[in-house]
């Protein structure tokens, strides 16, 4: 049993190595993922920023958490894309006829999604620093932020896996991420929800992005995180579990044995 476990870890390592190579050999995907959120950040800070009253003196600080979520929401569509190509080009079939753990293929993609999204988040934070983002957060708070972002990435990655495995076309594999990218706009990511009409406000305050953004914002500003962090974690875990179940189901369908 022990050796079987070691083997399946080593298989997963090989799969991770493969898919990391895919990411680094198509750096344009990372750049594409970073450019839109960065452009949005510039737009909101330097164009709309003066007109938006968030009650803080540093709008970049206010904006950054939402921008990071947008970057992740668009980044995971490449996971769907890569999975779709694997399925379509038959390489998954080759792996599935080999004596390796079936889950290794899927987990290789999932771990790669974590790595590549971490990279784009890192790049965007660097740009934000240039634009005046400052944080008084200590190492623990930063770790907590990293943890929330990782959990959020994982949850969306499993949604991406469902899309990639069940899509019939490349477009279909990545189109699902558009609504996810829009969620932050109807949340407290850009403007406080108090300014919204009632119906929109009710939606904004009760969808996952708002508590996640608030929790990250509070952590970065060294303020008390209140309940938000637990609501944020509950959303991420809930989405993760449901999406995982459906993704595994879709994965089993790709080869019925």
């Amino acid at each position, binding site marked *: 049993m022990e050796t079987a476990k070691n083997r399946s870890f080593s298989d997963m390592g*090989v799969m991770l190595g493969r898919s990391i190579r895919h990411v680094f050999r198509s750096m344009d995907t990372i750049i594409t993922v970073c450019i839109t959120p960065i452009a949005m950040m510039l737009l909101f800070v330097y164009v709309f920023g003066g007109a938006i009253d968030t009650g803080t003196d540093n709008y970049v600080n206010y904006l950054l958490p939402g921008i990071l979520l947008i970057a992740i929401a668009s980044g995971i569509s490449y996971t769907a894309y890569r999975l779709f*190509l694997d399925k379509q080009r038959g390489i998954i079939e*080759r792996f599935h006829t*080999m004596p390796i753990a079936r889950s290794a293929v899927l987990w290789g993609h999932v771990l790669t999604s974590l790595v590549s999204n971490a990279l784009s988040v890192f790049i965007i934070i660097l740009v934000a620093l240039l634009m005046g983002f400052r944080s008084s957060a200590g190492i623990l708070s930063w770790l907590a932020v990293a943890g929330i972002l990782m959990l959020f990435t994982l949850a969306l990655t499993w949604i991406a896996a469902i899309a990639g495995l069940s899509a019939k076309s490349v477009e279909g594999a990545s189109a699902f991420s558009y609504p996810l990218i829009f969620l932050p706009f109807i949340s407290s990511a850009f403007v406080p929800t108090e300014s919204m009409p009632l119906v929109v406000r009710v939606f904004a305050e009760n969808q996952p992005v708002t508590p996640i953004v608030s929790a990250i914002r509070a952590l970065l500003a060294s303020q008390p995180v209140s309940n938000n962090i637990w609501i944020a974690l509950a959303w991420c875990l809930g989405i993760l579990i449901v999406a995982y179940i459906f993704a595994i189901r879709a994965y089993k369908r790709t080869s019925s*044995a």
Partner: protein
Amino acid sequence: MEKAIEVKGLRKSFKDVEVLKGVDFEVTRGEIFALLGSNGAGKSTIVKILCTLLKPDGGTAVVNGNDVASRPGHVRQSISLTGQFAAVDEILTGRENLIMIAKLRHLKNPHQVADDMLKRFGLTEAAHRKPSTYSGGMRRKLDIALSLVGNPQIIFLDEPTTGLDPEARIEVWKIVKALADNGTTILMTTQYLEEAEQLADRIAILHEGRIIANGTLAELKTLLPQAKVEYVEKQPTLEEIFLAIVGNKEAI
């Protein structure tokens, strides 16, 4: 164990289309077995079931002593598939593709294995290029090379030479023959009757969901109506045999 593959009463439907209606055949260890059939006959479906990619609806299929439905993990230990469409990683180089498979097969020296394989298939020059820059023949060779890593006992080749020019086709034939000489069992599908004639120890013809003929080339030749043989000057080609048998069945 004499038989490498034993298939009995194999059935498979997709939705309401019954593709396999009870397929029976056996493949002896070390032989080249060719499965012939027209487009859509179900050749790839049989190969996928034997490779544990599809579950059969009925009947049994035993590969290397293990039932494909109940012990797929054991089956995978002894097989390797070169599917109908090349399954290579487009972004890794040829060499990296081979190293990856060698690692997944937990071989001792993946880099050495890859280099040997590149040499054996005349791909050393192209080792550091992506398969997207390869010709069709080179891709197919890499695809087959990937399947041979780790020396599996039973190899499935689904239309290995479709789309290749005659030269590349002959090269693939040589590879297949060399494998069989080393004791590897090979099940291949093809639409080229000449290919089966050239390579196969035994030939089975799949038609309308069943194996309608199965034997050596010589045995199949005797299936032709006697009268016809007398009028034909040269030996009948397998193509003629095929058409004759298929025609007969349809007449019934």
